[in-house]
Every structure is written in C-alpha cells, then in structure tokens.
C-alpha cells in the first residue's frame, strides 16, 4: 500500500461559463520516503493538487488516501487535526504568523494539538536549519531564506507523514534556493521524510526521485529519475 495515494482527483472552480477545471481526474501514488517533484507551468493545477493533498481544500471528486485512510472522509475539525499531525506544508511566501517568534512559529502545530513540545527535536531542527541564536526573532526580523527555514521547521516539527512544499524556493535568490533544497533533500535522505515539492524549476526537479508533470490539470508525465 502506498503511503499517499491520489485517486481520480478532480477540482472544478466556479460554475457555468466561468467554470475552470483545475484538476482533471488525476491519479498517482507516493511511496514512503519518496521525494517527488511536481512540475508544470503556471496555472497547470500543481498548487491545487498540493493543497488537496494537504487537506486545505476539498476536491470536487476523487480521493486522497494517506496510509489507506480517506483524507476527505473527515470532518473539518478532523481535517484540522490531520494538517497538524500528518502533513507539513511549506509555501513560496513562507506564511509565518507575524506576531510569533521563530520557535513559536515552528511549534505552532504542536501547540494547536495541545501537546508538549518535543524539546530535543526542536533543538535539533534549530541546529539543522541554522536558526540557532534567532529563536526569539519575529518573521519581520528575518531574511527570506531564514523565514523559509522556519517554515520548513514548522512543517517538520511534528514529524509528519509527508511534507508538501509549494515552490519553496520561488521567492529566494540562488544561494538561498540551493540551501533550502539541500535542507529538503537532507530531510528526505537523512530522516527518511516523504517529500512532495512543487516547482517549475527543472533543475530542482531533477534533484527528486521522481518527477510528475502536470498540464491543464492532467498528469502528462510521471517518471523516476535514475542516478
């Protein structure tokens, strides 16, 4: 059984003449520990796919199965718990809470879950992400690269089943982009973290185990990278 399975997933926005099919009958599966890159041009539906996999939107039809469990069979509150525990989301524009400092942003899903913070994991992540010494900084006091590290830390804090990253380097310079991608790769390879990354950068995609190309809401290519 695949860890994450997407089955006949369709997402339609709007009605009538203004109807837009963002995803059209998409089916694929991600195995545990896999690093998958989803590529496609702007408006191809890749971000919609990621949001549906992350439980932040509901599909028009089709299923998303995580470890065999239908994500969208859950209630809204159960979905919220799913987002805290089962997935980690990383966005292009970091999406940190402006009033929370680095450690608070990183541990927000834990706090929302009402659990105690795993201090060794937090310490380890701070070291790994190079955020040691900046624990009390607010997002506005950090550079873009640092903010994205915090976002990755937040995504990894709960050791989720899968990390879903939407253009994580899209807003960063080359040096920061390389560092962030290295972090994601390390998470995948060292920690065995399942990773799905959306990008339109072919070079980044080539660093993945597998590349899925999406065009007009459909999968047009799904190939494994041989190294």
């Amino acid at each position: 059984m695949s860890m994450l399975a997407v089955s006949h997933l369709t997402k339609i926005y709007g009605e009538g003449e203004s109807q837009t099919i963002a995803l059209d009958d998409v089916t694929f599966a991600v195995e545990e520990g896999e690093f998958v890159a989803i590529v496609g041009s702007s408006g191809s539906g890749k971000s919609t796919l990621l949001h549906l996999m992350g439980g932040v939107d509901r599909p028009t039809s089709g299923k998303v199965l995580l470890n065999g469990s239908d994500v969208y069979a859950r209630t809204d509150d159960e979905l919220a718990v799913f987002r805290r525990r089962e997935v980690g989301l990383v966005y292009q524009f970091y999406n940190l809470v402006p009033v929370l400092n680095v450690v608070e942003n990183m541990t927000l899903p834990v706090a929302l879950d009402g659990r105690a913070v795993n201090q060794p994991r937090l310490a380890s992540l701070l070291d790994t992400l190079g955020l040691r010494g900046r624990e009390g900084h607010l997002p506005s006091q950090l550079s873009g690269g640092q903010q994205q590290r915090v976002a990755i830390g937040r995504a990894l804090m709960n050791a989720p089943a899968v990390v879903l990253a939407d253009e994580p380097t899209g807003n960063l310079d080359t040096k920061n982009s390389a560092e962030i991608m290295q972090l994601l790769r390390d998470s995948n390879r060292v920690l065995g973290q399942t990773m799905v990354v959306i990008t339109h950068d072919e070079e980044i995609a080539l660093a993945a185990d597998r590349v899925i190309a999406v065009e007009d809401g459909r999968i047009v290519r799904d190939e494994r990278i041989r190294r």
Partner: protein
Amino acid sequence: MKGLTNYTVKSLRANKVRTLVTVVGVALAAALVCAVFTTFTSLAHFLYEAEASYAGTWMAVADTADAAETEAGLEAAEADASVTGTAVLHQLGYAELTQEQQNRLGQFQAVASVEGDEQGLLSIQPADGRMPQTADEIMLYSGWRTFEGVQLGSRITLPVGQLVGEEFSVPASESSITVTDFGSEEVNGTVEPHVEGAQERTFTVVGFYDKVSYALSDLYGTVALTGQGAGGTGAAQVFMTMADAESAEEVQRTAEELFPDARIELHTALLRYMGIASNASIWSTFYGLVCVLVGVIMLACVSLIFNAFNISVAERIRQFGLLSSVGATRGQLRRAVLLEACLVAVAGIPLGLLLGLGGCWVTFACLGPSIADLAGAMSVPFEVSVDGRMLVLSAALTLLTVLVSAWVPAARASRMNIIDAIRTSGAADISKRGAARAQKAVVPERLWKGGGAGARLFGVGGKLAHITRKRSKAKGRAASVSLALAVVLLMTAGSLSLFLSTLLDAVSDDEPAAEVAVTAQVARDGEPTGEPLTAAGVTEARNASMAAQKAFYQDAFDDLAAMPNALPVGWRLSGRMPAVLPADVAGSGYDGENVAIGQKMADGSVATEARVFYVEDGAFDAYAESLGLDAAAFHEAGAPRAIGIRQAYGNDGQTYQLLETLAAPGNVTMLTAGVYDGTLPVKFDLGAVGTAPEDRGFVPYLEWGNQQVSPGEVLSMADVEVATTSIEVAAIADEPPAIAGGWGESAKLIVPMSLADELCLTEEQPMFRSFFNPIDGDHAALAQELNDAGHAYFQRDGSPFEMSFVSYNDYRAEADSNQMLATVVNVFCLLFTGILALIALANVFNTVTNSLILRRREFAVMRSVGMSTRQFRRMIADECTGFGIAGLVPGLILSVGVAYLLWLTVSLSLGGFGFVFPWAYAGIAVAMTAVAMGIAVAYGMHRCRADNVVEALRTE
C-alpha cells in the same frame, strides 16, 4: 483623474460593508445635526406660535390720549408700507362692579370696542357666541357666567364712566406686555380710583371669551368688548404689526414716528421669539446649547469617519504605492481619498437629513402634546418646523466633518514611500515592546505557557490572542476608545435620568394618599381680643374653635364622600404649632448652624414649629397598630400623645436634604397661646434676638398691633404670657401614614382626630384636606366635581365659618405632569445619547471587523497548519473580549466619575440622598458591549471563515 475616480468608486464597492457602515455613520451624524437644528427651529416656531396664540401677532402698541391722535396715527400707519396690519381698541370707560362681582372679577370692568384684525393681531376669539357687532352688544369674560342670569342673549347693565385717580407709574424700562407682569408692577401715586360720570348702559350678551389675551387684560381685571359706534373717551390702544423689521429698536422707532405723542410698548416676547429683540438672552442659551450638542456630534463623528478612512487607506497602502509607481501624483492620491469621502458624504447626508427630519417628526408626534402641555399652550401644536437654511447648514457641517475626518488619511496616502508601500504585506505591525517580548519568549520550558485568564479560558486560541495583544501595535485602540465613549454617553444619560427622577421624587415629596384632594381653611378671624385677655383664655377659645371646625369638616367630608364618582379615602386637619423639643428628643438635624427647621437653644432644647396632623381615628388606629402601638392610649385629650416622624426635609445651611428631627420619644412642650400686655394674642416666629445661643428660640410678634406696638414688631418673651401644653411623643416612626403626606419640612406629629374635640394643636386655623379616588378613573372630572361640591358646601348660606379658601388638588394630573416632564427630558436625552452611542458602535464595528479582515492571511496560515474552527473562534473571542474590556472598563470608570460629578452638582442644591450608581445602565453598557463585539466578531469571522484558505494564502 478619471482613472482615479473609477479606482475610488471600485474601492468603495470592494468593501461594501465598511462603506455601508461609514455611510450609516455619516447619515447618523447628519441626522443628529439636522435633528438638533430642527428641534431648535421647531421650538422657536412653537414659542412664536404659542405667544401669537396667547397675545396676538402685534409687535407694538401705542396708547393714544384722544381720537385725533388715534386718527392721525392710523392715517400715517396706512401710508407706511412697513406697517402690515393694525387693530384698535377704543376705550369706552369703566364700570364699578358690585361687591359680589368684585370678589370674582375685580373692582372695575373695563369696556372697549375693537376695530381691525382682532383675531390675528390681538388673538381675541369668542369661546362661546360671537363677536359684538353693534354698540349695544357685548362680549364678556367667561367668569361672568358664574353669576345667575348672565348667559348668551341675556341683557346686562353696567354703569360706565370715566375712571379717575389711577395715577400709576410704570418704569419705562419695563415694557412688558403680559397681565401678570403689568399687575406686579410697583404702583406709585394716589391709589383711590373711582368712576365718575357713570351712565347706565345696557348691553345684550352675544359672546364669552376664555382666553384673556393682552388686549383683553386690564389693570383691574378683564375687558368687555362691545361693537363700534359705542362712543367712548377717544383714548385708544393702536396695535401694529410690521414687515421686515430687523430689530426691536426699529419697531419702536417706527411706532414712535407714527404716534409721536403716545406711549409705545413693544411685544417683547414675540419679538424675542422672532429673533429680533435685542435682549434675546433666551436665544443665547439656546445657541450655546445647540453649539455644544453639534460640537459633541461632530467630535464623535470625526472619530468614526477618521477611523474608517484610516483603515481604508492602511488596507490599500500597497495599492497607493502601485498607483504612485505608475505616475499618480501626491495631489491625485490625496484627491482620490477626499473624493471617496465626498462620495460617502453624498450618499450619507441626504439620507441623514431625511432620518433627522423623520426622527423629529416621530418624536414630536409622540412628545409634542406633552411639550405643548408643559408649555401651557395646548391650543398650539408642537410640530416639526423645517427651515431650509438649517438643512443646508446641517449638510455643510456634516460635509465639513467628513472632509476633516478624511484629511489626515488622505495626506497619509499621498505621503507614503512607494517602495515601503509596495513591500507592505498587510501583516500585523509589531511594536518595539512586542519584539522585545518575542525575544524573551524562547525559554523551552515556558513555550506556549502562560497567557493569563484568556489562555485558561480559551486554550491555545486564548494564548495566541494574548500574544497578538502584547506584541502588535494597538489596532484595537480605536475600537476601545469608541466603546469607552459609547459607554460614557450611555451611562451619563443614565445618571441624568436617575438624578432627574430623584429630583422629581424630592420635589413631589408629599406622596398623596389618593388621586384627588379637596383642601379648605377657615378665614382668619374669631381670635379673642380685648381686655382682660389671658393665655389660658386664648387656648380655651382655640380649643373650642378647633372642636367646632372638626365637626364642620367632618360634615364636609361626609358631604363630599356622597359624590357619585368619589371613593372616599380619608381626611385630616393639620397646622403648625410652636414647640420646644427637649435635647434628648430633638434629632441631629438641628445640630448645624443656620438650620432652617429649628433653633437649638442654649440648654440644648430646640425651638421649632411642629407640624401636627390630626388623622381620622380609624386611619390613625390602623397606623398605630402597624407600628405595634396601643391605639387606644392616644385618644385621651387629658394626656395627649402623638407619634413623631423621624425625619423632615430641611436646609442644613448648605443643602436641602432629609434631616433627623425627632430622635427619641419624650414630652414636647407646645406653645398653645401667648398674650401681650393682657390684651393681644401674639404669634411666635423662630429666630434669634441676638447672636448668642441664649438669644435663640422664639420671637413673639403681634399680628394686629395696637396703639403702642405695630403689627409685626418683635417683642420680648418676657413681655408675653405664654400657655403651654405638654404632649408626649410616645413613639418615633420612620414613615408618616399615607394620609399625612410625605416628610414635610418640620418635626411632624401624628395625633388621632378625636383629640380635635378638646385640644387645638395648631396656631393658625387648621388646614382641612380630604382625599378621594375616582370610581370611574376620571380624576380630572372628579376633581372638578369635588371642587364644585366643595365650593357649594363651604360657601353655602348659613355656613358657620367664612372660608379663607377652598381648592382642589388633582394629584394624578400633577404626577402625570411631572412624569411627562421627566419623560420628555429622558426621551430627548436618551435619543441623543443613543444615536451618539450608535455612531460609536459603528466605529467599533468598523475597527474590529477591519482589523480581522486585514489579518485574513494570518488566519489562513493558522488554519493551514491545523487550527480548528473551534480554536479559531476562541482566539477571536478572546481578542475581542480584550477590545471590549479595554473599552468597557475605562468607560465605566469614567462614567463613575461623570455620575459622581453630576451627583455633586445636584447635591449642591439638594442633599440627603446618597450617590447612586446607575447599575441598570451599567448592565445595558455591558450588554451593549457584548452585542457590539458579538456582531463585529460574527461578521469578521464570517468574512474570514468564508475565505478559501488557498485564496487567502495567495493574498499579497
């Protein structure tokens, strides 16, 4: 500019709710300003109409001495274009009335004929019948109808002649016009007026009038009107009205030019209400009040509209940056915001004016009759009077308010730094202190701990709200300030209402035992005088008179109680009696200096004027038994006993308040009589013949005087033989029986009516008061019936006593009138503050919802990382509770201050009641806060929750 205009319109459309709330705020502002001005113009119009209805529309009157002067003046007036109307009252003379007629109508009856516009200019209208048209017809004051045979169609003969000897001097400065004013003038010169050359003239009565307008009032009574051609003295009063007069001086000047030799009087009240009298101090007060009210409204509205535009600009600062980057000038950006303000004003102001006029219309429709009734002008309705100039002024002031409010945000939009503006993400602004706090919040063990009561109550949502409050710049400050303002306004209205009720309660202290009362008192005579006279003799005579009066009033009560619509409640006799309260009986109310209710003497005892109430035996017995006393023990005249009342209203030298008059039971000495020189009975005043304590006490004086001593001259107690009666105050009660009224203003003693058979405890003739309720509920009709029946009984032929007066009290009508006054004031007060509170609440709504909407991306982030709906709701609830508390607590504290100041102000003149906080209004304030916050949060949450997380996350 066209592009920016489109942009502005689209901006307004983009945030419909905020635009709508701002438009509503502007509309409310315009409505309030319009309502204040309309109330002002309506009141001015009403006062003018009431005065015109009462006294006519004449502006000046000339008193001419002869026909030639009158004719010449009238001709000149006709030629003068500024004079738009005249009416002439030709004096025919005076008739001396019979003694019986004089008792009701005055000594002389003036007779005159009228020519011209008597209805409009002089407000003369027959209440019954018609105006006289010939020289042998007459219209009389309706008081004439009380005489037998005087009715429409009957003939009346009056000895009309010249009134001589009336050399009066009226100060020229007092150009008053009303009967009361005129009658109260000091009179100089010889006052022995009489009629000379009287000739009997017979008239047919064709009409009666009720309303004694100025023209129909006379120094001696009323004027009887006859038709033209009746002859006369040639002297006349020429009343004039003028067009386009700009000042009272101009009216006076014109009248003097037309009638150079006549005495001119102006209708100052009318001129004042027309706004052209120079001494229009009433308008200064009104203008002041209007300015204060409009100022408060503008201030409250600036707060709302400024806030709305400030948020609007802050929300779009990135858009302004983009516009600027593509070439929009600072002026264009500023004008874009001001245009937005103008568009909001254009939508809000007409709506507001309509609302203001509609609100006035509804309010006046509900309260107009009460206001007209209070003003004593029931015939003139209190209606909305629309003045176009005031509407324009209201609109202009509201537009000014809007532009002033939008000016700073407009300037801010035009001065922003393009790069900063484009980079801004709409995220929360972090305060420096907030950043410092964040730096400290890294201790692993304390991560997500704390957060105060909010965190305990609302969990992690509360903790997040706590962090937001502590670290971000005070976005909710404007909401809290607005809320505090709303709370203070509401509570101030509440305090005013409360103090007004307290004042009314204090003023109407004498809680009536029933709805209607008939009051009567025997004329002051029958006191024994002459030689030899002893105090014991005077006492004996007074006791006998008291017994006779008691029997007389008992019959009266029985007679009145037989009225078909009357439900008898009871009766009482009361009066004042000089009394000495021993030190241990006297209450603390006499301790201070300058107390008005008694004099503390050197030995600690108190000289006072006790108020003794003889209460019907049945009612007394029930009262005594309610206090746990043996009622039978109070009926022995040989050992008189009374129940004392603990408190009375009095002035302690500073404030009017309830004071303790009787502290404990004991024997009180009543000064039942005093005789001077063995010949004359004396009266006793409270006072002091010197400044030392021993000088305090009673001051005897003579009411009638003799050859040696003048009436009123102060005597020495040593020269007076005094008779006393000791009365035992057997018990002290907190409240008097209902039939004995309220607290009163002196030590109050309650005794059974049976004592009146043998003991007089009043220095003056006792006052009879009997109480009745209407069986059919019509108190006014019962009052009239009882008044008529009372007059018939007390003034019947063969009555054993001549009455000083007989009157009635319609307590219910008085209470209604008081209630009406309170209602009118309360309604105006509450309407005004209510609308201002609404404006403030609109501000709260705008601020809270916008601060939530501005953070929609932040909320989406939280939801994307697993915040549940419940947690989200709790976080928002905690944040808004914070806003609410931050507004409510200072608002309530400030309100306590305002209420206390109001109480202090009232206490300056009326004391004895403690400071009362308007708890009910505080409850309303809390509820209002909860509702305002609830609505704002519900809407804000609805907007945030309605957001698609994906879309919100993309928002830049």
